[in-house]
């Protein structure tokens, strides 16, 4: 199955808008993806025909809303390859998933002398929650390096593991470099030393088929907004035994079995971790987003993006003074670059003038920037709705940067 990109583009209303008088060229899907009308419509339809609070009313509307919400939980379980839909916890975003595990699992488990192993290429969302946990428990953070191409040093990862390592947390796909990590291998290595494993899948899920049962990880986090769904909803996958052993993360309504002033008992998983009214219509939107990418086919999406990555990389490499940051052989369609004649911030403004949206800055991965001794990069990320004309527009606009600055 190949992807008909011109047909796909028609599904995304925003792609027919103009920015600064030019057709929008959106190359920042790694920050947040645009939404197809299938997702927008599903959310509107839920509000128009099916909305009520969930898990509460005996009336039919609440039941319809609850079934739609819980139906998405089953859909996500299938999508991620989970064995049981009770292993799917809805969160606000991937960041909240990491924080939930760090606090709920980690605070009870860790003691001084214990170690947490992360990597040098993590997003701040997979660094800071572990640093906070170290401060709370006296555990120590260890960091696995990567090489100049942006490939994780698996030998170093292995040697940093010890009987003190309690959890290894690493990204599936680097948001700043595009590197795809060998997560199954890393998971096996960590678990062989008795550590549990959390994988940050925020960047991976929109670009490649994920099967958590095959990977074997204990936890996997993702977010809907990078998967063409709404912002405000994320997913934590956790092995049932892990989730059941963990105390609640937040207290409130929906997460209880019974409440008296003497004693409160908690609902079973996953509801134990979903205190308060969740983002109901947004979960419905996530379900529609999964339907959307599954209908296109994740393999077809990955193949399309890989073709774009190669096409854009080849053209960008030919520009004198341009350096690509992150050249791993196994890479998602993310191209971070610096120009020796212009600062990334100026590049971002000049591209914006041409209607081209790229991310500039440290990409919430300051240690990656430090590793390459740059303050910032410009980053073009390609998604299922990008076509070769977008890469051409980028290359032409960089020529305008050169004209102005060089």
């Amino acid at each position, binding site marked *: 199955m190949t992807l008909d990109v011109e047909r796909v583009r028609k599904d995304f209303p925003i792609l027919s808008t103009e920015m600064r008088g030019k057709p929008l060229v959106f190359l920042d899907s790694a920050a947040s993806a645009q939404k197809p009308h299938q997702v927008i419509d599903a959310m509107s339809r839920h509000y128009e025909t099916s909305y009520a609070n969930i898990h509460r009313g005996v009336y039919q509307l609440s039941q319809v809303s609850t079934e739609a919400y819980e139906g998405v939980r089953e859909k996500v379980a299938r999508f991620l390859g989970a064995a049981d839909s009770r292993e799917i916890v809805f969160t606000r975003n991937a960041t909240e998933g990491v924080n939930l595990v760090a606090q709920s699992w980690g605070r009870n488990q860790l003691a001084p002398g214990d170690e947490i192993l992360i990597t040098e290429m993590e997003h701040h969302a997979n660094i800071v929650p572990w640093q906070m946990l170290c401060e709370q428990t006296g555990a120590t953070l260890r960091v696995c390096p990567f090489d100049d191409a942006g490939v994780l040093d698996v030998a170093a990862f292995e040697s940093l593991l010890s009987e003190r390592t309690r959890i290894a947390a690493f990204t599936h796909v680097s948001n700043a470099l595009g590197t795809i990590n060998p997560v199954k291998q890393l998971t096996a290595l960590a678990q062989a030393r008795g550590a549990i494993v959390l994988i940050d899948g925020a960047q991976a899920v929109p670009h490649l088929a994920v099967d958590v049962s095959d990977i074997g990880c204990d936890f996997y986090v993702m977010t809907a907004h990078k998967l063409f769904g709404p912002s405000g909803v994320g997913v934590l996958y956790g092995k049932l035994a892990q989730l059941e052993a963990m105390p609640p993360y937040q207290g409130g309504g929906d997460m209880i079995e019974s409440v008296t002033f003497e004693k409160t008992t908690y609902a079973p998983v996953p509801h134990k971790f979903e205190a308060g009214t969740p983002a109901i219509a947004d979960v419905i939107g996530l379900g529609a987003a999964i339907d959307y990418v599954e209908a296109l086919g994740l393999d077809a999406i990955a193949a399309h993006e890989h073709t774009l990555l190669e096409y854009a990389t080849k053209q960008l490499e030919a520009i004198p003074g341009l350096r690509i940051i992150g050249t791993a052989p196994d890479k998602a369609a993310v191209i971070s670059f610096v120009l020796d004649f212009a600062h990334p*911030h*100026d590049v971002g*403004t000049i591209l914006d003038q041409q209607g081209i949206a790229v991310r500039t800055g440290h990409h919430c991965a300051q240690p990656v920037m430090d590793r390459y001794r740059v*303050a910032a990069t410009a980053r073009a990320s390609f998604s299922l709705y990008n076509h070769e004309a977008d890469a051409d527009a980028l290359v032409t606009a960089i020529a305008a940067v050169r004209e*102005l600055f060089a």
Partner: protein
Amino acid sequence: MDDLRELYQSVILDHNKAPRNFGRLDDASREADGHNPICGDKLTVYLKLDDSGRIEDVRFDGVGCAISTASASLMTEFVKGKTLDEVGVAYERFHDLVTGPPSEPQKADDLGKLAVFAGVREYPMRVKCATLSWHTLNAALEQSPEPAKTE
């Protein structure tokens, strides 16, 4: 390209390529660091005040985008020889110049070459680039021990 020339005026491009008063000032009486956490720009402003409280010498050091580098360079030229009160007024005027609504063009005759930054107000995301050096200068004048931030 015409729109871009409004922001990237030739004076700005020139000061970015060849910043004036660039580098350490060894006999500085005051200095402060500035940092824009959004884009990673970092600079240091060095000051030497004379007995009457005028800025006798000023230099800056650091890395940044064209807007922040040119702004720092032009600022050093502008404030050299001025009194602290004059600098305070210029700081306010410059701030108004780059943050005012685009629909109300600002008269900036008293700001000399700094008027080239009037185009920045069209780009709210770039205002902090233009003001970083001024915030840092202010911190140096106040001898604030903390690095100046645009946040």
